[in-house]
């Protein structure tokens, strides 16, 4: 149905844009193991994106690539967290920590969705997300408790990403009719708040006290980082509209 498709589109865009960002790391990571790890996480997310976008597109007679390559910026529905530039490794880890904790709760709940396709996608994603969360938690500890410089950078990374946390958990009027199918984002906040601040403190760092960005990604309001990302992502496909690859 249309509302389910719109819901899947938002989730798919989150995964797609974060996967695109992680792809920027490959061949540029601090060590080969991280080229592999960040690539793996990116691949998992790209897999989630493809499932979700295919499902969304099925309601509109569109393929995943129609959605990924031929929508303009205001038609994207990702939260702004996922659009932010990769920054340094610490900023990437900060975002991965937040994102993984969010997906962790989300896909666990969504695994119980009354919509069998969403439930199946989520159930498959859950195991992968466990690894993502473990990866970022481990790095949070290493960087937070490693050297003075790494702790400083890790704190900066958290501070830079924290304003985009709030948006993830805001109530979305558009999914209220999807009771039992969609997950109320607000319901995921307590678990996040129980987990992430504890991890940050364990890593010897401070839970940021920054304000919250206004957000609006689910309504097509995007940060300034998305435009250039889409320009690059879509350039080739758009130069050859309608072609197969």
């Amino acid at each position, binding site marked *: 149905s249309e509302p389910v498709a719109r819901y899947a589109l938002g989730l798919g865009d989150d995964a*797609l844009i974060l996967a*695109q960002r992680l*792809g*920027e790391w*490959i*061949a*540029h*990571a*601090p*060590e*080969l*193991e*991280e*080229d*592999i790890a960040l*690539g*793996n996480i*990116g*691949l998992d997310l*790209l*897999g989630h*994106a*493809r499932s979700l*976008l295919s499902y969304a597109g099925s309601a509109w007679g569109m393929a*995943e*690539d129609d959605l*990924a*390559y031929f929508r303009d910026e205001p038609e994207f529905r990702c939260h702004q967290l996922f659009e932010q530039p990769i920054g*340094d*490794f610490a900023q990437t880890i900060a975002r991965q920590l937040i994102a993984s904790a969010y997906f962790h709760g989300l896909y666990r709940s969504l695994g119980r969705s009354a919509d069998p396709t969403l439930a199946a996608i989520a159930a498959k994603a859950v195991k992968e997300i466990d690894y993502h969360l473990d990866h970022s938690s481990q790095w949070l*500890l*290493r*960087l937070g*408790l*490693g*050297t003075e*410089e*790494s702790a400083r*950078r890790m704190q900066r990374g958290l501070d830079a990403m924290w304003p985009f946390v709030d948006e993830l958990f805001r109530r979305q009027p558009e999914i209220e009719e999807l009771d039992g199918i969609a997950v109320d984002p607000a319901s995921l906040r307590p678990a996040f708040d129980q987990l992430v601040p504890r991890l940050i403190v364990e890593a010897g760092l401070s839970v940021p006290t920054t304000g919250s960005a206004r957000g609006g990604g689910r309504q097509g309001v995007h940060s300034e980082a998305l435009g250039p990302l889409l320009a*690059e*992502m879509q*350039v*080739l*496909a758009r130069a*050859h509209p309608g*072609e*197969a*690859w």
Partner: protein
Amino acid sequence: MTPGIRPGAVDDAAGEERFLELITSDSRVEPTDWMPEAYRKTLVRQISQHAHSEIIGMQPEGNWITRAPSLKRKAILMAKVQDEAGHGLYLYSAAQTLGTDRDTMFEQLITGAAKYSSIFNYLTPTWADMGSIGWLVDGAAICNQVPLCRASYGPYARAMVRICKEESFHQRQGFEILLALMNGSESQRAMAQESVNRWYAPALMMFGPPDADSPNSRQSMDWKIKRFSNDELRQRFVDMLVPQAEALGVTLPDPDLKWNEERGHYDFGELDWSEFYDVLKGNGQANAVRLNTRRAAHEGGAWVREAARAYADKQAAAAADLELAS
């Protein structure tokens, strides 16, 4: 343990005899076996060069991850580039069994002291290059590497078995990229042909100079590290390519290419070896960029590796304290 004697070391004469026996009987030399220093050095150089090639080879393909024209192709490409990082790691592990550690080898790479395959100094200006690299470059790599699965040094041979399996998967993916383009629009077909034109000769040169100009090959063949000569492998590659090119509908850019009934092989034209040597000397399209990119990643990530080390040290110290206290 008597200082100066490594466990498993034997005196040279007995060691050499056993080494030759292993080679002659097509058995595997293992890390604990005695081996001539030259054999060890040859292997370290070859394996680490191969590792470096995998690592540097991530860049020309990594270049298209953000712009891949479909999500499926993006996923395949990400997985492929990641596999290359993995190959780099296996190969470093194999080389480490010969007593050279990974940091030393990596340092040699980023200071330019060690070589990597010249093919990765070519550029990937178009998406079709993702196809050509898979089909031609990985194709040539496989021809080179399949015999290495029977190389006399055990850890190397075993690493190659795993790598070859993935490479042949990569080659098929490259072929499929080109096939999709050749089945596409006129501009897609042109893109594919233009790319094959650029990559064909450099791929043939991947097997190294003609046998007459490759004096070191003989020793490697005697040691059963190498099993076929450069020219033999090149011929095998060309013979494999021609029918695949026909299936694709691309033209291989060599007017002298034709079937020789008598030899039972395809004849092919002279390659421009001056270009090969020029690229090898550092004057290729991307030599500097490739090294600088990896070096920048490495230097830019120094603080991350330091943090990981510091954290591990603190953890180890804490664990030791705990043990002491218990």
